[in-house]
């Protein structure tokens, strides 16, 4: 075997080893690397009360309520299988509305609800002009 071929072989072997190692590492990371819990995650294994976590899902249609104090809102974050009631005091981002995606940062309470101290609007991968969006049925699933 010529030296050049030896190096080619070694190079390819190294590449395969790196790929394999990282695939293993990433599959182990699967859960830890998630940016937020979905409502169905919460239903199966609930995060500890008073631990800072993020909750992501769709703001359920018709669930958004403005409370009497004027600065607190209450709504329900849902995915296909589960729902979580959320309360937030403060200024929500412009894109936050019913029927669209949201990521809430905050804590679970002992009563099973979620108290958010920050809201992030989640955008999906669809881009379109307003006149087309008006004709589209609104999304009811959480885009990845």
């Amino acid at each position, binding site marked *: 075997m010529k030296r050049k071929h030896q190096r080619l072989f070694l190079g390819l072997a190294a590449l395969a080893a*790196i790929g394999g190692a*990282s695939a293993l590492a990433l599959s182990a990371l*699967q859960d830890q*690397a998630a940016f937020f819990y*979905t409502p169905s995650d919460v239903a199966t294994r609930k995060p500890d009360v008073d631990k800072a976590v993020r909750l992501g899902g769709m703001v359920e249609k018709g669930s958004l309520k403005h409370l009497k104090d004027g600065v607190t809102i209450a709504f329900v974050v849902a995915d296909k299988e589960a729902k979580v009631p959320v309360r937030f005091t403060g200024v929500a981002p412009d894109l936050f509305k019913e029927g669209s995606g949201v990521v809430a940062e905050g804590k679970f309470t002992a009563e099973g609800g979620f108290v958010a101290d920050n809201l*992030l609007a989640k955008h999906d*991968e669809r*881009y*379109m002009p307003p006149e087309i969006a008006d004709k589209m049925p609104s999304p009811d699933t959480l885009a990845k």
Partner: protein
Amino acid sequence: MIHALANPTRFLKIARPLTPILFWSGLLLVLAGVWGGLTQTPPDYLQKESVRILYVHVPSAWLGMGGWSSLAIACFAYLVWRHPLASLAARAIAPVGAVFAALCLITGSIWGRPTWGTWWQWDGRLTSMLLLFFVYVAWIALERADRERGGDGRIPALFGIAGTVLLPVIRYSVVWWNTLHQGQSLTLTQSTIDDSMLWPLLLTLPGFSLLFGGLVLMRMRAVLAEQRVEARIRRMAA
């Protein structure tokens, strides 16, 4: 093909006329795309005008990642065939790729503020792209240190290949993990961006790519010219 190009004289013969062609055609396409994206396309139904940043953000992300793939291929070619031009190519690609990765992060951050309501979040896509930028910077430092100490370029070449691990992580981060960043809008066969908003991207994407090629060739020619000057000075001194 690779072996024929490994000869610097032959490489320069092709690179000299190719550089301005790539550079100017790329610039023209980018300007046309930016004009289209800023004045001709409708605003998005949710993001309004801030959607227009995608005409720069998407090509930057694409070239930040594409830059590293080409750097890794050059490193691999250097490691196996020991062509000096391959290591030169990697050296020329690195800062250009790093600039595009940075551009991707900056434009993304500017877009994220009005859309998500945050400049930065440690989500899978954002974090892995930031890592790629750091890996670029680390590679540049490592390669320079290796050259100054008279190394043979094997270590930076190995690092260049190892860095490719990040590319699938960035690409699939939005699939593997739930992230704040939205999923893939463009694949080879379909797009979830409406046609009326897509076309400027189809100009800036090849435009920035051609510009990238032009910049890399420029840098390679500059280094070759520098080496020639150094060789001549050494000969005159002797």
